[in-house]
């Protein structure tokens, strides 16, 4: 039985891995096919151009470039932090982004599942409220907080606090707000609670749960265990939305993470950083899917035997 599990996992690994490689290939092809020469943005001096082109491996054959992209040899940044190795920049930025992503994931998983498991869906305006994009939520939060604090200061209730405007807010508060904005603005909180509610209703109607009820046996733990593969699937589907929201979030909250780095690199056309960020983003999505596949394989025995 364990060997069936392992072979099923390897099959998923290969499929997902192939998708990642294909995505990187397409990205590189597009980069090379783009109009104009990337180096022209930096300089037009012929000797300097030749030296830069050589040092940045711009003319390496495609397979080698794909291998480099996937293995993390991304060269050095051109304009965002000139001369610094891209891998270092990404690692530094990850220290800010990973807690944000994990926090947002936990906020969607736990409160989202609890909200979805309530029997009576009394939050009816929910779909309309949940469509606020990340930047608008962040904007609303900043304005709201600032206006309220300003009004309180004007009324004499409080003295002007040290952290008056949001970008200067101390870390813990800012992180919490950022996590909340990301979880809601990316649509994940709504998607999770909706998904959990739907799947839970289906499971409650299933023959197995009906049989347990008819025998007077408890169903709550069985229901949650039936839900785990569904939660894994939901997580994988929504991971991409989370990463996308991160880009806007980090700019709005002025946080030095992967999203902000990527955006900066896009604005300044810093090709190595853009490429590396693209690869990391795709790897993140594929990795989340693979992780979800693993959880589902481990918890739903029916998946191990299917073709």
């Amino acid at each position: 039985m364990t060997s069936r599990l392992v072979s099923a996992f390897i099959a998923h690994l290969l499929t997902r891995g192939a998708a990642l490689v294909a995505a990187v290939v397409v990205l590189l092809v597009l980069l090379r096919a783009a109009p104009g020469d990337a180096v022209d943005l930096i300089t037009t001096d012929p000797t300097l151009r030749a030296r830069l082109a050589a040092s940045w491996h711009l003319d390496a054959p495609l397979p080698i470039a794909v291998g480099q992209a996937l293995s993390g040899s991304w060269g050095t940044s051109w304009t965002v932090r000139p001369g610094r190795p891209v891998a270092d920049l990404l690692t530094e930025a990850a220290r800010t982004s990973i807690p944000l992503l994990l926090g947002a994931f936990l906020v969607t998983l736990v409160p989202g599942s609890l909200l979805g498991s309530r029997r009576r869906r009394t939050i009816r305006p929910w779909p309309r409220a949940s469509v606020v994009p990340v930047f608008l939520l962040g904007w609303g939060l900043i304005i709201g907080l600032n206006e309220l604090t300003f009004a309180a200061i004007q009324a004499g209730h409080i003295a002007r606090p040290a952290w008056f405007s949001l970008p200067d807010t101390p870390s813990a508060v800012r992180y919490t707000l950022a996590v909340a904005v990301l979880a809601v603005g990316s649509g994940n909180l709504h998607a999770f609670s909706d998904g959990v509610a739907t799947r839970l209703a289906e499971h409650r109607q299933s023959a197995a749960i009906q049989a347990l009820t008819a025998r007077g046996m408890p169903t709550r733990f069985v229901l949650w265990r039936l839900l785990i593969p569904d939660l894994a699937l939901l997580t994988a589907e929504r991971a991409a939305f989370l990463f996308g929201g991160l880009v806007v979030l980090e700019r709005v909250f002025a946080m030095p993470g992967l999203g902000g780095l990527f955006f900066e690199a896009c604005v300044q056309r810093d090709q190595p950083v853009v490429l590396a960020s693209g690869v990391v983003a795709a790897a993140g999505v594929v990795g989340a899917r693979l992780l979800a596949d693993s959880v589902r394989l481990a918890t739903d025995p029916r998946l191990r035997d299917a073709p």
Partner: protein
Amino acid sequence: MTHRLTLHNLHIQAGTRTLVQGVDLTVASGELVALIGASGAGKSLTGRALVGMVPFEPGVVDGTVTWTRPDAPDITVSPGPHRTRALAQLRGKGVAWIPQDARAALVPVDTVHRQVRAALRHAGRPHTPAHCAAELSAVGFADPTTVLRQYPHTLSGGMARRVQVALALALGAAFLMADEPTTGLDRPVQARLLQTLAAIRDRGTGILLITHDLHLVRRHTDRLIVLDQGKVVASGPPSVLDHHPHPAVARLRGEP
């Protein structure tokens, strides 16, 4: 230790349509009673009503289920304020329902072992692996340890049904209610399953067998109740059907 399960004047309605009307039946310990009728006669619904699983409104509008126990007060389930509590006491301990689609009714993510153990634990009985294996042996599995390790989706139809019987017995219920247990099984498998049920009956559990296959059950049943369009049209020992004039009974016998 004789238990008695009595259903009196069951009335089931779906909206304004009456599906079951005035049905009475009794099962005692050590009896195998068959509830027979054509498809749509209302027999599955009657079985569901016994454990309070009628899925539509208004459902059971009248009718009392009484479980008479030798050394404890009676449990009575009737429409009214105390219905939920009485049902909770009846389900699993008084009547264990064995559903029609046996494999689908098993928890797909748990092994047979885990499910048997859960049933034993719910009944407050010892639930070591040896005890779980013993439960499976009691329903006729020759190799219980292999079956314990299986997941429901790898079981055959007949095996799944036996596991369901084992789960019902593990709960220690006084009565088993099997809903169409022989559908989808080959003839020899059907016969063996019925022998197992008869053996369980001999050990003292009361069994209500819901089926449309008259000939199959003739050998082992003590009494039959024939349902047609939601009403009882005949009841008694198997011989009562042989020359019964009612057209529904004739159809069951195989006559046009």
